[in-house]
């Protein structure tokens, strides 16, 4: 497997040009600071995006180890590997970690890395704010795991239902840790959303009208808009649970006019869209990988965009299907059943568009395509069990059983992790300049596909047999032992797959085959620059006149006249992408880290005494002022 065999000949490499002088000026103007302190100051969207991805995979390992611990405990009846108290903490940590610290952040990270490249700009509009987002995420995760290792891991489930999560039944600070990390992750997601929404609307390459935006960018745009409208619900939910627990408010206290279901409504109004926040970027990845593998535009661009947008809308009308067992009015239940079934329409449209794309093409069977095919298989099964769960009578039968656990893993691992690993294989050459090993990637896929189905398919059956979720053990007479053992063996195979993936990454970083600018011969703009791209992304900014600029153009048209001696962005009009003006953006600074620390001290301190919150806010004023004062620094 030589590098030249899979890279384009040099003369076919897409080169946006720029003179030597321009290049050296750009290098100087956009230079990141050096040394350890320089690392803390980075404001480059690619650096921050990579940090999100690497950190998210760190949490993925932790969440995975927790999953393995649970599987070991459940491998046979009356096992004594974990005690019930630790088991409660571990399943809560697993869900919390995977949802808030892996799935969402890793998608945010990939969006942050690739959206500015794919729309052809130099950085996100608010680079320092963007850095704050990452620090919040990191500090939140460190706080959660510090609590856990100090025997203070949250233990009321990842959706923390009251009254169990209220102070009456969960005294101490375990649930408080959960409540606070929600604040950290929501701040970080909202910051990334603001950055990317403005990037997509205002910083696209000249000529990139709305109907020429790459599908991955569309998927991220819809996702980020969902973040904007979903996160406020969990801000309210976590805020009110926090104040119920610390200063004695009564939002969820029925005795004083509160209501436990208010928690479920406000949590799931966020929680269901959250699933689509994880899933939509994966759909964008699938479309990207398919067009590059089949070497043709994805069939039905407009239909796919409209499907993404309508999934975004419908995603907000489904939350009550998590609450069918709470005795809501039948009329309401029927409405939410219908809405839940409706989501199959846009998803089905996309599936047919993808099949039509592959049909009659001669796709190259690279590992990223294989991951997409695996996604088709698993996700369709997950979608079908989703339709089953959307109907109230069946939902009531299997509510809170392992059927639900099986379903949600088919949707989330099949719907997000498979495309994600495919996308990482596909984009790894761009991010690092080297290929991931092909053979190891095939093995990763094989183990993952086999292990995944072995782990989660039996859970559906266990659910039908009546095995409840979140119970630390079961009696031998139940007859659940063999299927559980099978499931645990599958989990071991998944662990092997993930281990192979990490081995591949570490080996390829040092010894992988070198990749050129556009090793897959793909069509979108991230391939029109070096691998890895320089801090300023492009020597000269591209101009586009079609959806597939690198396929359609013989000579790449570029922008000239943008200043190269300062950090200047080209701002374009939101709809048609015509140039509007130029704007300078702030550069690297340690202030985002400092302000993240002062605010975090306030948030974490408030778990122990409310006064820490205003104290943290006050302590954040000096760094905020310094930030404002230094924004113009070259």
């Amino acid at each position: 497997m030589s590098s030249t065999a899979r890279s384009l000949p040099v003369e076919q490499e897409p080169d946006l040009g720029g003179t030597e002088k321009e290049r050296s000026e750009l290098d100087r103007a956009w230079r990141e600071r050096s040394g350890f302190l320089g690392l803390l100051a980075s404001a480059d969207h690619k650096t921050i995006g990579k940090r999100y991805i690497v950190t998210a995979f760190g949490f993925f390992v932790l969440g995975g180890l927790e999953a393995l611990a649970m599987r070991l405990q459940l491998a046979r009846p009356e096992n004594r590997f974990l005690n019930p108290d630790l088991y409660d903490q571990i399943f809560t940590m697993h869900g919390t970690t995977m949802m808030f610290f892996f799935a969402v952040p890793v998608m945010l990270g990939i969006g942050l890395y690739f959206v500015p490249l794919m729309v052809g700009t130099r950085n996100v509009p608010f680079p320092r704010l963007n850095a704050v987002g990452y620090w919040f995420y990191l500090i939140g995760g460190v706080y959660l795991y510090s609590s856990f290792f100090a025997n203070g891991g949250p233990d009321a489930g990842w959706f923390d239902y009251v009254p169990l999560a209220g102070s009456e039944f969960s005294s101490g600070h375990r649930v408080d840790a959960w409540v606070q990390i929600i604040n950290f992750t929501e701040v970080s997601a909202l910051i990334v959303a603001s950055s990317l929404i403005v990037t997509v609307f205002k910083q696209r390459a000249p000529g990139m009208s709305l109907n020429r935006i790459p599908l991955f960018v569309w998927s991220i745009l819809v996702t980020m808009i969902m973040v904007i409208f979903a996160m406020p619900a969990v801000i309210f939910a976590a805020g009110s649970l926090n104040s119920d627990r610390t200063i004695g408010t009564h939002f969820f206290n029925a005795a004083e006019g509160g209501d436990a279901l208010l928690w479920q409504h406000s949590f799931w109004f966020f929680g269901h869209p959250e699933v689509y926040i994880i899933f939509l970027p994966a759909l964008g990845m699938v479309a990207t990988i398919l067009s590059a593998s089949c070497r043709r535009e994805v069939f039905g661009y407009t239909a796919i965009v409209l499907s993404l947008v309508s999934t975004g809308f419908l995603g907000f009308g489904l939350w009550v299907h998590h609450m069918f067992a709470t005795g809501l009015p039948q009329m309401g239940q029927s409405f939410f059943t219908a809405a839940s079934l409706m989501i199959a329409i846009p998803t089905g449209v996309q599936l047919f568009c993808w099949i039509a794309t592959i049909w009659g093409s001669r796709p190259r069977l690279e590992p990223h395509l294989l991951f997409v095919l695996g996604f088709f298989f698993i996700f369709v099964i997950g979608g079908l069990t989703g339709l089953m769960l959307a109907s109230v009578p069946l939902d009531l039968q299997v509510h809170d059983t392992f059927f639900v656990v099986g379903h949600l893993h088919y949707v989330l691992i099949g719907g997000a992790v498979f495309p994600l690993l495919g996308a990482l294989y596909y984009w790894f050459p761009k991010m690092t300049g080297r290929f991931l090993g092909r053979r190891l990637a095939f093995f990763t896929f094989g183990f993952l596909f086999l292990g995944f189905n072995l782990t989660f398919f039996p859970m559906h059956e266990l659910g039908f047999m009546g095995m409840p979720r979140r119970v630390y053990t079961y009696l031998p007479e139940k007859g659940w032992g063999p299927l559980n053992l099978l499931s645990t063996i599958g989990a071991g195979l998944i662990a092997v797959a993930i281990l192979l993936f990490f081995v591949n990454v570490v080996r390829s970083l040092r010894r992988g085959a070198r990749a050129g600018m556009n090793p897959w011969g793909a069509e979108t703009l991230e391939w029109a620059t070096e691998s890895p791209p320089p801090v300023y992304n492009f020597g000269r900014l591209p101009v586009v006149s079609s959806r597939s600029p690198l396929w359609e153009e013989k000579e790449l048209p570029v922008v000239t006249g943008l200043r190269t001696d300062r950090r200047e962005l080209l701002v374009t009009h939101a709809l048609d992408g015509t140039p509007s003006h130029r704007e300078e953006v702030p550069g690297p600074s340690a202030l985002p880290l400092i302000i993240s620390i002062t605010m975090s001290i306030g948030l974490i301190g408030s778990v122990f005494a409310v006064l820490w919150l205003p104290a943290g806010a006050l302590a954040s004023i000096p760094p905020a002022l310094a930030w404002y004062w230094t924004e113009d620094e070259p």
Partner: protein
Amino acid sequence: MSSRAAIDVSDLPTAVLDSRSLVWWGTVVMTVIETTVFAITVGAYFYLRMIAHEWPPPRIGAPALTAATANLVLLIVSVLPALALDRAGRRRDISAVRLWLFVNLAFGTAFLGLRVFEFKALHCWWNSNAYGSVTWTILGLHTSNLLTSLLETAFVLAWFLFEKPDEHHFLDARLDGVFWYFIVITWIPLYLVVFIVPRL
């Protein structure tokens, strides 16, 4: 695959003070987030009202209107200096921006002072019952936006007093005015919810 120069942007302006700018868009996204937080909280208010037998709960009574209505009038009047600030920013008029930033700060502070009486007018504490919790939360959320706005105004004013403002500071002055519009516009429905709805 070589490249060719297609568009020359050297003549384009390097700063704009209006809705085309990136910070403007950022501010709009932020107000959308804040508005959604308000909307969800108001949703919770009506949810709790729906399940309550009596709203407000017995022996609390509807909130007093004097302070809140006075504050509402004050807030609506304060749109005028915010408008003047916005225009001064657009004209790039340093002394007018200074003046109106200062007036805005004064209005904001007066409003904050009256806010204390609005909390008192609720006749209950946040920990009295769910009604108290949700009304205090709505007022508290709006107050936190107000504090942020005051802080921002103070920062921009400090810059205009002690440093040489460039284009983006004039934009900041305008956006300070815009953020104030947001505070005024959101308060009108919130006032109706907190102070009038309990009388219905």
